[in-house]
């Protein structure tokens, strides 16, 4: 998480980082450097492990060798136990980064007579510290001395002296103590260790166990006072610094597709990146499918998606989603998609939160799906579940992860009253509901709210097809919304009406075309007729003109014959055209 928090603030006391996931954050940088810290808790709650991890990370990561003084387990037992958590103590011992000193105090072997002190312990510890140049010391569990020696007043005085001595030597010390009646440790060690006290707790509620950590006291430092859940797994301890709940998330303007185009449209472009989306609905309304589509679309863009499944196994989910055309296999193979399928009843709530946040930290997804978050109710009471949801939502938002939660609402319940109370945490809230009419059940979807964006107020029918999710408009008729076959009927009716209209238009168009054709034909006939008549008339005009020309010539010829006949005749005898003229004259005659 944020490194800024882990760094000690200027002016505050120096801190020794524990290297334990989350603990450094909760303590504002680690344990008080050079001072003793008391870690108290009942048997089996992880005290030794915490102390050991503090030493190991000091030796391996922070260059601070450490001494582990074991009053209960032998060095070999400790080494064996630590190996299961991935710590190689033997190797660290060989490299002189760690020293385990098992202090065995056997009551049956020891008699006491007169005054004594714990000088031997001081000598051993001092020698060990000097040998390694140790900066860190663990005393686990020093209270065992009280069962080895009978003079408690000597022991108390000596422990007080020991803690002061350790402080003087400037080593950062972790002292573990077993939780006692009415006080933090059996012997009231908290009286002597006043710098930092951490309480570990391992509760079992209704057969579900939860580990919690609380900082009871930390002198000179502001620290989280909550109970923080922590878990112990193959990597050791990790504490969940469950959100500062400060509401200072980074805000994104970019959108992220819902995976369904029409739904993107309803939300004017998709969800905002880094926000939380709640998808609630009754059983079988398609919540998981819509969530899967969202996941698949994110992976399709090359983003990483972490899918928490609390109802189905990963394999089952993949098979089922294939039926609506969502194939997760390539995304899983490419490492873009990771499933974490658990029964909700497997852990307590905090444990769930812890494992989920751990997975998020490891996988670093851009998109997280929790299906369903409502099942968390099964793992705790409603108030706790709301808290958990808040922590989860805030934690993911602070990382800029877009998260989608499905929530199962009961059939009779009010949808707007989402059980987990997550609704106020959700930035976008989609509601899936059943539309039951005419003997069939259909799915409807609408946007209940979506902060900071214009969104559709329409109810859409939500279809799961073999090629994915489709959204359709819903017909609103006198009997309410129409979906499914009613909608299909309505659609058919509309189609028929449209067809009729289209046919009418086509028929008119054809008629018009025909008329134009016939008009054109008539025009053509008239034009042909006219052309014929024109030709005829022109011929007649020409004939008339020819006739007129001949007549004039005949008359001229006649006139010449009468006046200057001899000359004309002579000339006419010489010209070969005489015959023609005579022919015409003949025709005219």
């Amino acid at each position, binding site marked *: 998480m944020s490194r800024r928090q882990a760094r000690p603030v200027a002016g505050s006391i120096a801190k020794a980082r524990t290297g334990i996931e989350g603990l450094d954050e909760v303590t504002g940088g680690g344990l008080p450097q050079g001072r003793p810290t008391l870690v108290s808790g009942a048997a089996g709650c992880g005290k030794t492990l915490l102390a050991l991890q503090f030493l190991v990370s000091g030796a391996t990561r922070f260059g601070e060798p450490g001494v582990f003084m074991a009053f209960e387990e032998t060095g070999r037992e400790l080494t064996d136990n630590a190996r299961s958590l991935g710590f190689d103590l033997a190797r660290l011992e060989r490299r002189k980064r760690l020293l385990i000193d098992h202090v065995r105090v056997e009551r049956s072997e020891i*008699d006491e*007579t*007169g*005054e*004594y*002190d714990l000088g031997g312990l001081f*000598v051993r510890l001092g*020698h060990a510290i000097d040998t390694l140049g140790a900066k860190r010391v663990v005393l686990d569990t020093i209270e065992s001395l009280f069962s080895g020696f009978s003079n408690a007043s000597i022991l108390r005085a000596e422990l007080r002296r020991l803690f002061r001595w350790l402080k003087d030597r400037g080593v950062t010390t972790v002292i573990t103590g077993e939780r006692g009646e009415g006080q933090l440790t059996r012997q009231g060690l908290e009286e002597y260790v006043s710098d930092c006290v951490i309480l570990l707790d391992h509760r079992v509620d209704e057969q579900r166990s939860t580990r919690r950590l609380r900082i009871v006291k930390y002198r000179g430092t502001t620290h989280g006072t909550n109970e923080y859940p922590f878990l112990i797994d193959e990597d050791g301890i990790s504490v969940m610094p469950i959100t500062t709940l400060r509401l200072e998330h980074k805000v994104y303007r970019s959108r992220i597709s819902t995976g369904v185009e029409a739904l993107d449209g309803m939300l004017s472009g998709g969800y905002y990146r880094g926000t939380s989306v709640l998808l609630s609905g009754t059983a079988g309304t398609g919540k998981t499918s819509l969530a899967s589509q969202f996941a698949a679309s994110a992976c399709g863009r090359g983003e990483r998606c972490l899918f928490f499944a609390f109802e189905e196994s990963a394999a089952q989910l993949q098979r089922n989603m294939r039926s609506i055309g969502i194939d997760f296999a390539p995304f899983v193979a490419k490492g873009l998609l990771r499933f974490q399928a658990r029964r909700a009843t497997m852990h307590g709530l905090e444990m769930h939160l812890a494992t989920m946040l751990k997975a998020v930290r490891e996988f670093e997804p851009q998109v997280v799906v929790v299906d369903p978050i409502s099942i968390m109710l099964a793992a705790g009471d409603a108030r706790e579940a709301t808290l958990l949801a808040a922590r989860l939502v805030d934690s993911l938002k602070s990382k800029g992860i877009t998260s989608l939660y499905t929530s199962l609402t009961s059939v009779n319940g009010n949808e707007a009253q989402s059980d987990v109370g997550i609704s106020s945490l959700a930035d976008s809230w989609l509601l899936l509901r059943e539309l039951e009419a005419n003997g069939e059940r259909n799915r409807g979807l609408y946007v209940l709210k979506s902060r900071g964006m214009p969104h559709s107020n329409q109810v859409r029918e939500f279809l799961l097809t073999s090629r994915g999710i489709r959204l359709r408009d819903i017909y609103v008729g006198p009997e309410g919304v129409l979906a499914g076959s009613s909608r299909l009927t309505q659609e058919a009716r509309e189609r028929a009406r449209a067809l009729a209209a289209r046919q009418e238009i086509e028929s008119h168009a054809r008629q018009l075309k025909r008329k134009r054709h016939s008009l054109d034909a008539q025009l053509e006939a008239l034009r042909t007729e006219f052309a014929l008549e024109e030709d005829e008339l022109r011929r007649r005009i020409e004939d008339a003109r020819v006739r007129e020309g001949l007549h004039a010539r005949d008359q001229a010829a006649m006139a010449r014959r009468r006046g200057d006949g001899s000359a004309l005749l002579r000339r006419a005898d010489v010209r070969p055209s005489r015959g023609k003229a005579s022919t015409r004259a003949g025709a005219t005659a």
Partner: protein
Amino acid sequence: MTNGKAKRPRRGRSRSASGAAAARRARSDVWRLRLYVAEGSPRSRTALANLQRLCEEHLQGRYLIEVVDLRLNPRLARGDEIVAIPTLVRRLPPPIRKIVGDLSNVDRTLVGLQLRVES
């Protein structure tokens, strides 16, 4: 480290003056006692004085006391699991017994060393 003198050796490397005789006795009924102390501590001095007096009284001629100063030999504290100072360890005869304190209570010391059965 198994041998020591009845007087005040700093550490049990020096052999007993009686040499072979002592070694022979060591195999039979010699008590081997080791007292862990811290130099300069008054309690340590008291413990040694008390121990010597008690041995002279009850184990005359058949005991070896080895005094180990942990300030000088911090390494040795681990071997006998020493936590408190002063600590008297009865190494022989078996079983190993430990008595912590300045041995000021003679009766308790004798019981602790199993030189006297608790009544």
